[in-house]
């Protein structure tokens, strides 16, 4: 039986309404957990005063430098003693999830049991970086909790200036739009960086994320330093039965308004079924006996829209791989940055292909470690030094896909132009 509950009139108001309430969960834990009684007390105080009361510190498990987020209370009385002593220490263990966040009930129950024994019993599935967040352990319990979680086959994720925990979409496990084996790529890359995850020593954080197609369900382009986004380079595949099924349900108005006119590059056209264009880069499919759609794949930018609308009727091609973008991030310190294309297409089918991805990641992280200023993300380094210096430093070939447009300002010293042209010509001839 836990200690007496503190009154929580404000938090109580979050127990009404149809959405599941975390407050009800905290109260259930507090029935037999003193830490949660006091956590509720501190949280209620925050609701009253509109102030936060946690400060960080340094807690780690034996052998690692990161992965635990330490929290100590700053809510103290006149003599400097915590007002809610049983929640004075409330550390989080960041734990890497399986790719695609698949679980069975057996492992979830074991994780829950462990956390009930050693921690507060509160778990977030998942934090914004993808970690399972085991929230609320006392300093003297962190090692025991980790040991059990680790024995179950799970490992700590990243925190601080380190390679961070990664995420990948459901991908090949359940999605027809998957363009590579996201889970294998995710595991292969991340497990080559375990030292950089567990022992923070980079200028700042570095995140990899893996999305199976340009729908980018993992938001890799905005939220990761190196985004691996699935794509294909041959023609969109078609299936007449499913294309006809879409048309039968929606008709020509929807087809024109929702599919043809929403194509960002006008690569798709409605055509007469008796005049379907042909050619090596054309995908065409009849939607009825009289009408068909035709796609000029050389104009297609793989945006996914038509494939999303006519699922199965149109599908990504067979020559699949990924586009690699570098430098996405939000706010600090120079504002939002999207990832920039550095490799337009990379095959990711074999172990050898994935080794090349690991190698690219390693070269980028090494460049970051050597050249970024403190607390600077790689996108900011690129902004500071220019993309050319970055790709040359990392050893990536210049490609017209890296830009939205060529430069518009004339202030460039171009006296190396002829040499560059000669190099490119020589390379072409050698190929």
């Amino acid at each position, binding site marked *: 039986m836990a200690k007496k509950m503190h009154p929580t009139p404000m938090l109580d108001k979050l127990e009404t309404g149809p959405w599941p309430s975390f407050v009800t969960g905290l109260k259930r834990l507090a029935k037999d957990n003193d830490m949660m009684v006091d956590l509720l007390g501190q*949280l209620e105080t925050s*609701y009253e005063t509109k102030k*936060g009361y946690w400060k960080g510190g340094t807690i780690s498990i034996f052998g690692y430098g990161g992965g635990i987020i330490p929290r100590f209370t700053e809510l103290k009385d006149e003599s400097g003693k915590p007002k809610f002593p049983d929640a004075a220490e409330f550390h989080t263990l960041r734990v890497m999830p399986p790719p695609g966040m698949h679980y069975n009930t057996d492992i979830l129950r074991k994780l829950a049991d462990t956390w009930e024994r050693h921690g507060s019993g509160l778990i977030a599935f998942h934090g*914004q970086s993808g970690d399972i967040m085991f929230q609320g352990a006392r300093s003297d319990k962190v090692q025991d909790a980790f040991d059990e979680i680790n024995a179950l*086959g799970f490992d700590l994720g990243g925190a601080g200036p380190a390679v961070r925990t990664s995420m990948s979409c459901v991908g090949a496990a*359940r999605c027809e739009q998957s363009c590579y084996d996201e889970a294998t790529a995710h595991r292969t890359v991340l497990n080559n960086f*375990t030292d950089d995850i567990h022992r923070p020593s980079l200028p700042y954080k570095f995140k990899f994320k893996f999305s199976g197609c340009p729908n980018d369900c993992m938001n890799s382009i905005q939220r990761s330093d190196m985004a691996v986004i699935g794509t294909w380079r041959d023609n969109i595949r078609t299936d007449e039965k499913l294309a006809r099924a879409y048309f039968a349900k929606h008709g020509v108005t929807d087809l024109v308004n929702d599919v043809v006119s929403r194509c960002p590059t006008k690569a798709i056209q409605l055509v007469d079924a008796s005049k379907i264009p042909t050619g090596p880069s054309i995908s065409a499919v009849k939607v009825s006996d009289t009408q068909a759609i035709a796609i000029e794949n050389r104009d297609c930018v793989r945006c996914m829209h038509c494939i999303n609308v006519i699922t199965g009727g149109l599908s990504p091609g067979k020559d699949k791989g990924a586009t690699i973008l570098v430098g996405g991030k939000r706010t600090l310190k120079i504002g939002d940055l999207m990832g920039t294309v550095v490799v337009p297409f990379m095959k990711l089918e074999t172990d050898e292909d994935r080794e090349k991805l690991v190698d690219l990641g390693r070269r980028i992280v090494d460049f970051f470690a050597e050249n970024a200023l403190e607390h600077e993300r790689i996108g900011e380094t690129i902004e500071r030094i220019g993309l050319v210096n970055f790709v040359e430093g990392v050893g990536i070939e210049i490609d017209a896909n890296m830009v939205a447009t060529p430069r518009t300002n004339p202030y460039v010293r171009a006296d190396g132009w002829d040499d560059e042209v000669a190099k490119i010509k020589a390379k072409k001839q050698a190929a």
Partner: protein
Amino acid sequence: MATATATPRRAIESGVPDNKQYMHPTLLKNYGNWKYHDRPRPGVLHHVSYSGEEVWSVRAGTQRQMDVHTIRKLCDIADKYAEGHVRFTIRSNIEFMVADEKKVAPLIEALTTAGFPVGGTGNSVTMISHTQGWLHCDIPGTDASGAVKALMDDLHQEFIKEEMPNRVHMSTSCCEINCGGQADIAIIIQHTKPPKINHDLVANVCERPAVVARCPVAAIRPALVNGKPSLEVDEKKCICCGACYPPCPPMQINDPEFSKFAVWIGGKNSNARGKPTFMKMVASGIPNNPPRWPEVSEIVKKILYVYKDDARPWERMSDWVERIGWPRFFEKTELPFTKYLIDDWRGSRSSLNASAHIRF
């Protein structure tokens, strides 16, 4: 008497666990072999494999910060109705996979009865991805779980139905670092006053050059205050970003009165149709009013329902605004367009209208 020190346990640096050991057998069997999917009803996805096998996924909302009893309740449901396998989405929804269509209805019934709303697929408002807030963050201007719970109560119907023009992703962040992420509608607490400096503590707690270096507008400089090494802020330059607070807590940026909510719209990470977009600030100065933050909810709902009425099929928030233009967005939502919404940061001229493209 000397006691033997127990050797500490060395971690097994196992890295990312293999997901195949936990995966639903139908997913495992058809890995990389899926043909298409459809949505039989809100909250349910139906995937068909080239092998002919099918799987139904039922998606339910959770409170993200879950107690072990809730997790066990979800496991009980998974064991009884859903073949013992689940997965989570990036927005903290839980998905149950079943290989038999007959199992879908009882599963939905069990989830709904246990208080987990079924929805969040297709053109729904999805669960709000959010940050830790007062529950666990060291620099929060507000709570996140609470604001999200309050708003999801209001948007419950939009979660369990699919009535929006396209999907609506939302996020909530408890400071401007915006860990909640880009979204169609994002709710972010914003500091509106420069940090209050406790000069007695700075020298002991903060690495002063690191704090100076972190300021994006060079508003911070070292200073001697009352004979002690400290820092001072040029308040005219300060943009109240809060970057100095994490490395130097005596530079308190959160303020019970002057930390206000801002609302941002039109962020999209997908490449579908247009290129990915960042979200844009459309409202500010909204009070931080726990426990249910009614002022924020009101503005969010206003934007959401104007979009719902006005956007065409498949238009995300950003596509819709691109069609109708920003002046009409502000007109329709009745939000005031103030000078603070005109960007003045580095590279900001790219966000100005360098054309005669005007809608009347």
